[in-house]
C-alpha cells in the first residue's frame, strides 16, 4: 500500500462515500470490479460467474435479458464491433451480422431488430452496463452511479462517444474512459511493482490493441499505440467454423447414404462448436467432436494454418507500433498478454519470436482490464499516487481543397491536447463556414473516418480574407474531441454547431434517456406489483388451509365473511394497483384475527389433552 503524501498547501482528500466501479465492456464478456487500497476485486453475479456475456437474449415470453441463455429464441452478440459505425462501414468487415439489421435506417447508427423492438448497439451496451451495475449494487449494498469504463485504445471518437452514451442511458456517470491496454498496464504494474518499458498485447473477442508504455515513479506513460478494432478471437472462431463446415459435409457424405449431411447448416451455427474446439486446441494437439451425428476432427496444425494470416496481422501491427515508439525491440523489458485470444499457442510463439522474450502471462488475461479500471475508479474518487498519461491513437485532421486530409494532431500525441487553426473567409460578407473533421492515417479524406462537420456561424460580415476565425480542436483525457471558435478581429466566441457523422443525435439520445428513466421506474413498479401479488397469494392459501383444518371452529357467517374477502383479493390481484392489493390483504388479516386466536387456543388445549388439532 502506498502512503498518501500531501504536498504542502495541497487540499486534503475529500470525504468520499461515492463508490465507483471499473467496467470492462468487452466484445464477448463484460466484467465489473471494485478496488480498495489499489487492490481490485471482480464482482460476481448472483449466479457466481465473474463475468456477464455481452449478449442480449430474447426469451419465449417476449422478455429480453442480458446473458447467453441457452434455447433463447434470438440472441444479439458482439455489438461492440458495431459501436460508432454506420451500415456501410460495418459491412466492410462483417459479412453476416448473425441478427436482423435494418439497412435503410442504419446510415448513422446500426438498428437491430429484436422481437418487437428496434435497438441500437448503444442501447444494447446500455443493457449490459445496467446488468453489471445491478450486480455491483447487489454485492456492495450501495447505489453505484459512477464508473471508469474501458475502451480499445484504437477506438475512434465516434466509438468512444457511443460508449459514453451507453453509460448515460444505463444511469452511470463515466468518470473516465480509459484504454484497455493502459488499464491492464496499471493493474499489472501495481501488482508486480514493475518499472520499465512494457508492451501490452491485447487480443480480445473482437478488437486488437498493442500499446507500448513506460512505467516509472507511478507514472504510466503510453509511448505509442496501434491496433485494429475489427480483429479478435471472433475472427478465429469464424475461420475455424468455415473449415468445420467443409469437414462436416465431407465426413457426412462419406459416412451415410441414408442420412446425408443437412444442407441448412450454416457457418454461424458452427461458431459455438468452433469456439469450443479452439479452446481445446490450446491444450491438445488434436480434438474430436460430433456435430449433428457427424464426427469432426481438427488438429492444431490445421487450425494454425487457417489462423496464420490473422496472427501475422497482429504481429505486423505490433512491429509498426514499435517503430512509432522510436524504440528498439531490445528496449522493451516485457510483453504482457491481455485478452482470452492470447492463450493461442501460435500467438505466443510469434510474440516470442518477434521480441526475443517469453510473454508475461502471470496475470489473468480475462480479468486484468476490469481490475485496472477499478483501480483508476478508486484513484479518481479517493486520490492516488499514480498517473495515466495516454495518447490519441489516430491522427486528427481536416478536409482541405482537393479532398485531402491535412493532419492537425498526429497519432500518438499525448492527451489532453489543444491545437488551434486559423481560418479566413473567401467571400465578401461571408457569415458562416463549415469544417469537416476526420480521423485516420490516409492521404485522402474519403479514406479516413468522418468524425463530424462543424458549422461556424455568426462571422461578422466583412471583405473576403479579413475576418479571421481561430478554431481550437481539443482532445480531452477521454480522447474525445470538442471544438470551440473565436473570431479574432472582434474577439467574439463563435457558435459551433456539431453534426457528428455517426451515432445517436442529441434529440434521439434525449428520447432514449427519457424512455430509459421511465422504463426503470416501470420496472420497479412491476416488481413491487409482482411482490404484492405473491404475498396476497400466500395469505389466501394460508387461510384456505386453515379453514380446511379448523373451519368447524367458527360459525358459517364468519366463514362467509372470510370467503367474501378472499373474493375481493382475487379481484384486486387481477388489477394493477399494488396499493389496493396490500389494503385488501391487510383487511383479510383483520377479519381472520379472531379465527387465528381460536385456532391457537384449540391447538393449546388439544396439546394439553394429548390430542392434535387435525385429529379432531
Amino acid at each position: 500500500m502506498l502512503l498518501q503524501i500531501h504536498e504542502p498547501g495541497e487540499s486534503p482528500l475529500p470525504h468520499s462515500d461515492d463508490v465507483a466501479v471499473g467496467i470492462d465492456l468487452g466484445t464477448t464478456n463484460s466484467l465489473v470490479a471494485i478496488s480498495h487500497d489499489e487492490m481490485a476485486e471482480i464482482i460476481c453475479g448472483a449466479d457466481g460467474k465473474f463475468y456477464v456475456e455481452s449478449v442480449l437474449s430474447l426469451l419465449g415470453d417476449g422478455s429480453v435479458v442480458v446473458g447467453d441463455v441457452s434455447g433463447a429464441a434470438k440472441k444479439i452478440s458482439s455489438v461492440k464491433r458495431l459501436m460508432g459505425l454506420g451500415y456501410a462501414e460495418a459491412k466492410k468487415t462483417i459479412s453476416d451480422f448473425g441478427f436482423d439489421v435494418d439497412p435503410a435506417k442504419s446510415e448513422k447508427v446500426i438498428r437491430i431488430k429484436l422481437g418487437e423492438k428496434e435497438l441500437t448497439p448503444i442501447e444494447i451496451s446500455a443493457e449490459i452496463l445496467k446488468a453489471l451495475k445491478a450486480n455491483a449494487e447487489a454485492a456492495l449494498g450501495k447505489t453505484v452511479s459512477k464508473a471508469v469504463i474501458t475502451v480499445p485504445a484504437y477506438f475512434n471518437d465516434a466509438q468512444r462517444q457511443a460508449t459514453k452514451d451507453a453509460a448515460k442511458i444505463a444511469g452511470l456517470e463515466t468518470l473516465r474512459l480509459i484504454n484497455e491496454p493502459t488499464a491492464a498496464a496499471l493493474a499489472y504494474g501495481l501488482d508486480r511493482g514493475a518499472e520499465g518499458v512494457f508492451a501490452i498485447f491485447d487480443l480480445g473477442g473482437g478488437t486488437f490493441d498493442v500499446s507500448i508504455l513506460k512505467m516509472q515513479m507511478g507514472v504510466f506513460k503510453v509511448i505509442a499505440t496501434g491496433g485494429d478494432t475489427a480483429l479478435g478471437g471472433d475472427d478465429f472462431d469464424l475461420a475455424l467454423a468455415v473449415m468445420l463446415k467443409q469437414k462436416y459435409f465431407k465426413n457426412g457424405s462419406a459416412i451415410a447414404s441414408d442420412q446425408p449431411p443437412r444442407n441448412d447448416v450454416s457457418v454461424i451455427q458452427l461458431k459455438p462448436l468452433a469456439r469450443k474446439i479452439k479452446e481445446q486446441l490450446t491444450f491438445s494437439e488434436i480434438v474430436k467432436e460430433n456435430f449433428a451425428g457427424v464426427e469432426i476432427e481438427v488438429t492444431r496444425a490445421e487450425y494454425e494454418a487457417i489462423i496464420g494470416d490473422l496472427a501475422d496481422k497482429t504481429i505486423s501491427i505490433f512491429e509498426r507500433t514499435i517503430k512509432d515508439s522510436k524504440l528498439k525491440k531490445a528496449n522493451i523489458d516485457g510483453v504482457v498478454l491481455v485478452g482470452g485470444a492470447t492463450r493461442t499457442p501460435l500467438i505466443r510463439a510469434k510474440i516470442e519470436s518477434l521480441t526475443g522474450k517469453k510473454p508475461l502471462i502471470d496475470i489473468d488475461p480475462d480479468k486484468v482490464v476490469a481490475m485496472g479500471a477499478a483501480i483508476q475508479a478508486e484513484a479518481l474518487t479517493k486520490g492516488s499516487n499514480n498517473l495515466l498519461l495516454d495518447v490519441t491513437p489516430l491522427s486528427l485532421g481536416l478536409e482541405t481543397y482537393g479532398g485531402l486530409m491535412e493532419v492537425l494532431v498526429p497519432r500518438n500525441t499525448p492527451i489532453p491536447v489543444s491545437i488551434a487553426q486559423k481560418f479566413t473567409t473567401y467571400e465578401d460578407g461571408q457569415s458562416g463556414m463549415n469544417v469537416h473533421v476526420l480521423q485516420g492515417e490516409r492521404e485522402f479524406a474519403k479514406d479516413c473516418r468522418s468524425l463530424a462537420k462543424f458549422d461556424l456561424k455568426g462571422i461578422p460580415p466583412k471583405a473576403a480574407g479579413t475576418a479571421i476565425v481561430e478554431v481550437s480542436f481539443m482532445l480531452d483525457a477521454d480522447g474525445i474531441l470538442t471544438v470551440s471558435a473565436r473570431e479574432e478581429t472582434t474577439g467574439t466566441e463563435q457558435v459551433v454547431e456539431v453534426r457528428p457523422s455517426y451515432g445517436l443525435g442529441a434529440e434521439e439520445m434525449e428520447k432514449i434517456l427519457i424512455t430509459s428513466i421511465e422504463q426503470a421506474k416501470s420496472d420497479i413498479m412491476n416488481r413491487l406489483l409482482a411482490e404484492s401479488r405473491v404475498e396476497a397469494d400466500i395469505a389466501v392459501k394460508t387461510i384456505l388451509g386453515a379453514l380446511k383444518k379448523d373451519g368447524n371452529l367458527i360459525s358459517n357467517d364468519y366463514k362467509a365473511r372470510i370467503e367474501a374477502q378472499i373474493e375481493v383479493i382475487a379481484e384486486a390481484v387481477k388489477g394493477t394497483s399494488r396499493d389496493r392489493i396490500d389494503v385488501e390483504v391487510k383487511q383479510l388479516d383483520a377479519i381472520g384475527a379472531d379465527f387465528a386466536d381460536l385456532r391457537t387456543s384449540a391447538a393449546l388445549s388439544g396439546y394439553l389433552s394429548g390430542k392434535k388439532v387435525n385429529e379432531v
Partner: protein
Amino acid sequence: MINYFEIFGFQQDYFIAKDRLEQEYFKLQMQAHPDRMIGKTEAEKKALLGTSANVNEGYGILNDDVRRAEFLLELNGVRVNHERDNDFQPSQALLVEQMELRERAGEIESGLENKAELLSHVDAEFENEKKEFNKYFSKKLFAQAAESAMRLKYLEKLKDELEKL
C-alpha cells in the same frame, strides 16, 4: 508566448538532458492532469484542462531536436520552418543538397541506392547538424542558426520518409 524552458526549469540551451526533462514532465503532469483534479469544481477543472495540454505541448517541443531548435529561435524573435511568414529562407546550397538526397532516395527502389547506407548517412548528417546549430545559436548568430534549423528539418523529414519505405 509561453516559455517552456522556464516552466520545465531549464536554461535556454540547445542541448538538454532528456532524462531530467522527462522527470520534470511527469512532475508537472502530476499537478496539472485532469485525473489529479479530485475535489476541484467543474469550472476549476475546465480552466486547468488547458494547463495539462500546455505541459504536453511543452514536452513535445523540448523533447524534439528540431522543434526545440525552432522554439529557441522563436524565443529570440526569429521565425523559421513555418508555413508562411518566415524570417529566413533556405539557401540555394541547402535546396540543392536536399534535392540530391531525394534523388538518391528515389533510386532505392531500382537498387541503385542502398537504403541502409543512405539512412545511415542522413542520420550522421543530422547528428552533426545538431552540433552546428548549437554552435551558432550559443554565439547568437541567428541567421546561421536559422539555416541550420532548416537543414535539421529537411533531414528529419527525409529520414521519416526513408524509414517508411
